[in-house]
């Protein structure tokens, strides 16, 4: 890494640390469902049906249908962990590690978890 990019990096890091409110403000354009559906965000529908949400149309079938989640995951933290990094449970999984690879921010991950938790 050269000096400029190190500087840019540390500036970026500093900005997110100093100004978390601003960073969060910019992101909360979508709710949990919106994030789960959005192709550039969760895109969960690419792989999962969500049968209890009538708006979840033309889903893929790579992963299992997301239904009866509360009984599958009595512990919300375990559900969040599955979404944060599915490879921890199954290194061969097709599911992207949304938290670990920063596909979703931590705040977005919470919103998606809450939405899925209710399904």
């Amino acid at each position, binding site marked *: 890494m050269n000096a400029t990019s190190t500087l840019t990096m540390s500036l970026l890091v500093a900005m997110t640390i100093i100004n978390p409110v601003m960073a969060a403000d910019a992101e909360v354009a979508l709710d949990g469902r919106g994030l789960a559906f959005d192709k550039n965000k969760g895109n969960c529908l*690419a792989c999962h049906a969500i049968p209890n949400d009538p708006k979840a149309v033309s889903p*893929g079938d*790579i992963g299992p249908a997301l239904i009866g989640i509360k009984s599958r995951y009595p512990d919300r933290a375990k559900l969040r962990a599955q979404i944060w990094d599915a*490879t921890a449970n199954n290194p061969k999984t097709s599911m*992207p590690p949304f938290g670990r690879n920063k*596909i979703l921010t931590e705040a977005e991950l919470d919103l998606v978890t809450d939405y899925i938790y209710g399904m």
Partner: protein
Amino acid sequence: MKHKFLSILAGLLLFTSLGVYAVPEEDRTALVNHYKQIFPNIKFEDYVYGALAMNPEAKEQYDDVMDFPPYAYDVRQGGVIWETPFKNGERFASCFKYEGNNVAASFPYFDDKTNRVVTFENAINDCLKLNNEKEMKYASQEMAILTSYARSLSDKAKVNIKIKSPGALAAYEKGKQYYYQRQGQLNFSCATCHVDNAGKFTRSEQLSMMVGQASHWPEFRAGTEPVTLQGRFMQCQKNTRVNVKEPNSPEYNNLEFFMTYMSNGLKMQTPVFRK
């Protein structure tokens, strides 16, 4: 005595080399068996249709389109470029065995002299260079249109990629490694979609099997947009947020070599229509 020793040595070398070169064929058989399990009702020769082979209705529509392909004019243009003499009077046909008939099925091949994979597109550019003509950009529209005709001269020939030297095997292994390696933010490998999840849907797109993918290029996507095989690599990588490689990069050429080997025994067909 010395003779006997030498012949034993030769025998040993032959044995080890046969052992080494068995790997690609074992890989190919294992992969074909994997797809046979997922698709017990799809015939091997139909793998060239990719996702269409999994969906009779879509295949019917495809057959209708192929009766009067919207890209017919482009292929004729490709034919004109292929036939038009260079400034020195030579033609593309002069650069290929059998005037270019039934040769595309053995591309890419590994050239031990230059230690590189030679794609059909490389051979086109080598020909242009040899005849003091301007080379074409890889994965360009121009290259796709010329090869839509030039490769069609090999229609129905069976893909026949050979791996006969340590260099060829190394290139194959590199291509294979690239294919199975997870990349980018989404952590997908090519195999995530086209091996592990072949036949499954991502939203409404059914995922094609990799065997058969390399035998029918270029494609005309949406009927009129010409795309080379390596152009398609770039599209899949962009869609999955992976940093694309340059067309004709060693990575893509090795990948094409590996993938085309995996299509060995399937009939060539150029070009085809895809969504």
